[in-house]
């Protein structure tokens, strides 16, 4: 009884707090003490404490925005943000939000976008990934993520599928590789599934693994640009001599038994009756494989926290050690225990205190960043940023492709994170560093601000038009609300939180001489929205 009363009164206090604006200092961090809530936190704090780094937890305002952006690449609506912040159940609401977000449709869109960079989903000459093949590829990736296909199965299907590029999505893994020699395929497989750059390998390791990809065949069909990827046991073998007219074609020389060498040095004679890609895939996805699990948990961790435990996440090698080997080993163990259930691992990370640390830098800054003592600030991805701008203004962008195919005409309301094909683009996406999807490397996406991007955000007709004419902003401005309510709605819409005392004050002082600060002209409102969109808080995950 006492307990219930206490919860109730706390809830009332919390609700009251949400309604009154906070001041800047208490806006971004929660006053709750950081205590390890699980193994992740224990392992991270074990690093931070000796270094004298004292992390803080982020506030609910920060968390709601962060979770939406990291899990579904989409901003919360004003309503969603308000409901979360005002939800009095401070104990359980973060975990419940995580569960809800992991089931949203946008989860599959956004994570397909990330995988699209790694798997190079882009219709393009000279890669020859035709637009409908790129669509098939993306459709398969998206469906796999939506159904939370176990990651080992996901990888195995990508490596071992056969069939038409238009009908069997995963075969496009092979067709999207620019260099289709066995060595080229090997390098692509190593990068995608082992997080390892083959150009850092000794050459015999590359050659030994390439044997498994020496029997990948491609053959055209009668349909234009359709091609079947298949196991071709005779690939690379020439016929001993051409058949003379009227004679039956000669059998090619039988292949001498081939020996593949797994990257760990194990040699295996390829059985004649089995696609060597399968032999390799079985080795790859074994929980004992030293690269496979490590690579995926490190990649997932870096996608959520902005930095790999091994950094960069696709540069795993002996001389690039993890900053926290115990943490990496723990995540690997969990991934194997969960049978490669990706959402389970994401949930584990998202619910940790570590994920929920404040982004305000902790001295010493570099050590804190490397050891996850603060959440890594990073600019929104090009697609996420334009979606966010469109969402708050109620506008849309035009996406086009140089390749005129029906698949490249995009409905106006499709968000950029859902674009299947990297060749479908806009000047904004190019300017803001979207991945060119040429190499499958993570660093092809560049989220660093450059002056030309500022010119665009601060002063382009593209953004200005959205601010002045966007129906969503207009609705807020023209709603006949009181100025304070209007400002509050702008803040909830754009920054997913209530304005602070200082901000309310700053806005009250806004207004030109001869006019009271409390009424806002349309121009003032556009300028407020402009300032919020150009603020660090809008542009960055924090």
């Amino acid at each position, binding site marked *: 009884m006492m307990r219930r009363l206490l919860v109730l009164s706390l809830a009332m206090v919390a609700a009251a707090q949400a309604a009154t604006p906070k001041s800047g200092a208490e806006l971004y961090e929660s006053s709750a003490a950081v205590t390890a809530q699980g193994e992740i936190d224990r392992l991270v704090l074990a690093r931070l404490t000796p270094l004298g780094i004292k992390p803080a937890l982020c506030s609910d305002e920060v968390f709601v925005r962060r979770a939406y952006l990291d899990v579904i690449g989409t901003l919360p609506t004003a309503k969603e943000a308000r409901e979360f912040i005002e939800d009095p159940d401070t104990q359980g609401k973060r975990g419940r939000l995580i569960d809800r977000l992991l089931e949203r449709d946008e989860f599959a869109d956004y994570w397909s976008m990330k995988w699209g960079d790694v798997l190079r989903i882009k219709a393009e000459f000279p890669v020859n990934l035709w637009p409908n093949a790129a669509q098939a590829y993306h459709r398969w990736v998206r469906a796999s993520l939506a159904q939370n296909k176990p990651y080992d199965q996901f990888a195995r299907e990508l490596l071992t599928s056969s069939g038409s590029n238009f009908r069997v999505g995963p075969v496009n893994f092979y067709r999207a590789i620019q260099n289709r020699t066995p060595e080229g395929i090997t390098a692509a497989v190593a990068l995608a599934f082992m997080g390892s750059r083959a150009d850092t390998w000794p050459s015999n390791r590359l050659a030994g693994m390439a044997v498994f990809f020496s029997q990948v065949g491609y053959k055209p069909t009668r349909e234009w640009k359709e091609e079947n990827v298949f196991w071709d046991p005779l690939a690379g073998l020439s016929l001993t001599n051409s058949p003379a007219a009227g004679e039956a074609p000669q059998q090619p020389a039988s292949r001498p038994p081939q020996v593949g060498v797994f990257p760990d040095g194990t040699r295996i004679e390829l059985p004649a009756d089995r696609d060597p890609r399968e032999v390799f895939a079985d080795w790859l996805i074994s929980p004992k494989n030293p690269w496979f699990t490590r690579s995926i948990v490190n990649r997932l961790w870096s996608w959520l926290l902005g930095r790999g435990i091994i950094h960069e996440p696709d540069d795993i090698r002996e001389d690039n050690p993890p900053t926290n080997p115990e943490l990496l080993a723990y995540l690997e163990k969990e991934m194997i225990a969960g049978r490669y259930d990706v959402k389970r691992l994401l949930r584990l990370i998202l619910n940790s205190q570590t994920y929920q640390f404040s982004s305000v830098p902790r001295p010493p800054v570099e050590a804190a960043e490397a050891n996850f003592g603060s959440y890594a600030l990073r600019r929104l991805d090009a697609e996420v940023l334009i979606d966010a701008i469109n969402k708050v203004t109620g506008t849309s962008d035009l996406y086009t492709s140089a390749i005129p195919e029906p698949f490249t005409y995009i409905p106006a309301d499709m968000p950029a994170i859902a674009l299947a094909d990297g060749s479908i683009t806009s000047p904004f996406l190019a300017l803001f560093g979207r991945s060119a999807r040429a*190499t499958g490397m993570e660093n092809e996406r560049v989220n660093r601000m450059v*002056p030309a991007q500022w010119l665009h955000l601060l002063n382009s007709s593209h953004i200005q038009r959205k601010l002045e004419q966007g129906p969503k902003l207009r609705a807020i401005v023209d709603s006949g609300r009181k100025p304070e309510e209007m400002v509050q709605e702008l803040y909830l819409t754009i920054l997913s939180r209530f304005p602070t005392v200082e901000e309310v004050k700053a806005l009250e002082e806004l207004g030109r001489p001869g006019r009271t600060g409390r009424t806002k002209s349309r121009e003032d409102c556009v300028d407020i929205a402009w300032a919020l969109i150009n603020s660090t808080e809008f542009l960055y995950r924090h």
Partner: protein
Amino acid sequence: MNPESSSYRCAGGIESLGMTLSLSLSRREALRVGLFSAAGLLLASHPLLNAARAATPAAPPAPASGKVKARSVIQIFLWGGMSHNDTWDPKPDAGYDYNGPVKKFLPTNVDGIQLSEWFPQLAKQADKYALIRSVTHRNNGHETAAYLMQTAHVPGERLAYPSIGAVFALFKGPEYKGLIPPYVVLTRPQGRFSEEGFLGPRLKPFATGGDPNASRFEVEGVVARGITDERQKRRRDLLERLNTLGRAMEASPQLAVAEETRKQAYELILGEGREVFDLSREKPELRDRYGRHTFGQDCLAARRMVEAGVPYIVINYPGGWDTHKDHFQTMARQCPQLDQGLAALLLDLHERGLLESTIVWCCGEFGRGPKVDWQPPWNGGRNHYGNVFTALVAGGGFKGGQVVGASDAKAEEVKDRPVYPVDLLGSIYTLAGIDYTAKLPHPMGLEARVLPDPSEGVKSAGLLKEIM
């Protein structure tokens, strides 16, 4: 962190090349080198260069030794393809089927050089430019011919090469310190393979948009319609006041860099940078001399950018020259504007002592059919023609008052001294001190060079030594 003289490593990509690139520049300088220059951007975003053992050397290589004559290039791209017969390679004796209604031909201030009746101003400036009357690539498709003239590589190879402007941005970007991006297009981009190729979107040209002949040249991102300076400043102050997280995160090195880049953008929006685009600072008489039309004022804006040190400026001729129909009417309308703007540009550069260090080159992706197509539906039009056409080059080490090569009696084929795209672009690169045999950084580490190697079977008749 000492804000003025930090040993700031300019970009993650360079940093991880294995060379510790501690620049002892002021931070502002470092940021300019690292962030404004397209090359910095490229390096930073270049995946393979991030590998510790990148096989390719750090590009861009040092400029080739030898004297650098050209600091800037203005390329006037007569896209669509301008007729050579009706303009700079007239054949007075070719007859009506070739010349149509063009009957007057002008002598110039250089003996032996003749132009058509539409170029009276250029006729007075012939000592300042050379006409190459034997450019040839025998390609009649807009896209493929434009690609040839911008890259000199064979279209349809596996690689999509960067245009000459992107190559300039790559090589000249690091030494260029200006506020305006190093590769600018006035005013609309042309697409058509004239862009960055495999170098990636970061080397796209900065397209100004707007119209320099309008009362206010609204350069996209720099000059916004309907926003006064007062409002710009008010907005900036508001942003400072409302940037709550930015203030809470002052210790973040990453944000410090972003703040610097924002300041640089504001130097274009509210500071010195935008003055380059403010043509109202020129005397009205000079603006009149260039011509009060978009092309004329494009030329004036280009000259102002040359003064600001911009390495490569493209003027995509407004409206283009793809005159399948209404050919002679269009020529009668456009040629006088081309004449006025280009002649004024050459004279103005000359008078300011800039012509010696500025290459101006002007041509289309091809010429147009020497024989007029009188049949419907063309009714006196001219079609695409890549067998022979004319390019004008001036300044930056090119000698004026010259004619290179010749076409035959009716300007149908090369008679003397063919000039292939690789010869023309190679000459421009040489005058600008760019080693055209240098490697380009390909994202997959594939072998790629500025110009194709002779071993690739690309036709060449040698650099334009006779006018260099």
